[in-house]
């Protein structure tokens, strides 16, 4: 059993999470792209932080777990940006995606 620590008020956090959920559903209904992105991902990030810090007790956890999680996210970011140049574009230096503009030779499948 873990060492005792003060338990935060879980119901209150749950209540805040539900409000955030409502915002993230309502946000996109305005159909403004930047609002959608902010409400969808910004709020996902906030919710994640709340769940991790309060429900998962990261607040009270040793620093090493924080480092561990931060390293994970950093490496994922490295992966994303290393790959983005090739996969997130449909053309680049000396290459282009030829399926999109129908200039490809017919594919066997």
């Amino acid at each position: 059993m873990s060492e005792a620590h003060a338990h935060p008020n879980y119901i209150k956090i749950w209540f805040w999470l539900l409000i955030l959920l409502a915002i993230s559903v309502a946000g996109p209904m305005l159909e403004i792209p930047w609002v959608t992105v902010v409400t969808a991902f910004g709020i996902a990030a906030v919710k994640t932080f709340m769940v991790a810090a309060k429900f998962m007790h990261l607040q009270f956890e040793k620093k090493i777990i924080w480092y561990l999680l931060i390293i994970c996210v950093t490496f994922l970011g490295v992966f994303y940006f290393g790959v983005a140049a090739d996969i997130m574009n449909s053309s680049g230096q000396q290459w282009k995606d030829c399926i999109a503009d129908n200039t490809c030779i017919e594919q066997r499948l």
Partner: protein
Amino acid sequence: MGQQAEAILHETEAHDAHHEMSFWDKYIFSVDHKIIGFQYMFTGLIMAAIGGYFAYAFRMQLAWPGEEVPFYGLVDAAKYNMLVTNHGTIMIFWVAMPVLIAAFGNWLIPLMIGCDDMVFPRLNRLSYQIFLVSALVLILSFFVTGGGFGGAWTSYPPLSAVAAYNLTNWGASLWLLAVFLEIVAFLLGGINFVTTTMNARAPGMGMMDIPIVVWMINIAVILFMASVGPLVAGAVMLFFDQRLGTSFFIPSGGGDPLLWEHLFWFFGHPEVYVVLLPTMGIVAEIITVFSRKKLFGYRTILYTAFGTGGLSFIVWAHHQFVAGIDPRMANVFVVTTILISIPIAEMLFSFIATLYGGSIEFSTPMLWALGFLVSFLIGGVTGIYLGASALDVYFHDSYFVIAHFHYTFFPITIIGMFAAITYWFPKMFGRMMDETLNKIHFWGTFIPFNGLFLPLFLVGMAGQHRRIADFTQYPDLASPDLQSIRIFATVSLVILLLFQFVFIYNFFNSMFKGKKAPLNPWKANTLEWTVSSPPPHGNFAELPTIYRGPYEYSVPGREEDYWPQHLAPNQ
């Protein structure tokens, strides 16, 4: 938990261990970390035999194309592809990783950090069982209709994703499933290793008192865990492409084959360091013991290992310089790739500096360790050629790559494995190996190894590319000179394989009939040499407390030239 409670618990445990265990409980379904280590080691050695046999078959085909290979039969194009693919897969996933990380990790971590077992013994057993299933699935994949998978160990889609392209419908899927299971097994095992090292160290053992090999295995495991995740997702996607008809990696359906290449190499490059670092650790243990020297720059070696691990995550695209990635990105990766030579060079320099002023005894483990340094140096420096993007335009997928790759992986896997086995054999089985046979085996492996792979640099420079069943058809490559180089390499391989029988004989003969080994035959400092050989279930009669680092050899003012970690300062 206090030490007193530990002592009480330990006593009851030892008492429990007295009751007779059946053969199955003791050797097959054991939760003892040492038995699990043996299970990994023997499975790995059997897989190594299969991998070596495959290498023999396709090297014979290259030397004498189209002729029936003794003990194999005719190697046609499909079989050739299957052989090279599975040779690579087996040697990396079913030999290098189980033997270097899982076997020696299991065996050494609890002993070296002074505790009685892994923190999760049953998880440990589960990890081996999954690993065993994965090996069986891989072997099964050779025998299904269409034959084993032949799309190279990198398994680039669309070739690997579409049965109509690779013509090995089930072979490809089983291959992928086997790799997937193997990864799962190592994730479970790895979590166990890291948790054990973090939490279960003996009292007094600070971060800087951990033997380097334990550090290295742990760094390797963390690298593995961090790099393999995206590939696991990718493997699921590829499996769906194969079996359910999705098109994650098939361009005509909207996917992108380059994505797999990125996913694969994001794992594939750190994987090189995953297997390299444990061997570096093994070598560190051996050269300190046999030169009676303190390790030169413990912290330096540790930090360079961290540096290498971190850098290894940002170099992966050097495998794809000419794979159609954006050429501007290549410039980023060439810088990081060349930079990774810096920590590795520093680590090698530290090892060499350790020898300075030593009292070097050329016993077999030391010969293997020095052999590792020499041959890995060749592998390392030839990596500079391939990391240079402009030169990779010529050398990509050529035999130069093969030679470079084997000059790194052969020393890491095979030489590292033999170094470790010959060094820890007395502790593992309580008997000494025959030193003469060991030396014959060393020279009989080391010389043919160079005879095998040095010529491949030459054919690589001649523009010969890999995964071709018969070069004599290629007008520019058919010259008798090049063919005689190939034959020379093949003959070296056969000699190398024949000398392994010396090892097999010596191994089993010494295991049962060898001279009884003393407790600490090499006069080493680390904790595994303080327990009886072979160590009993529960390892230590009395759990040790640590007073100093693992490399206190030839300390001035002490009569003995070693100073075991567990001896209290006044002893």
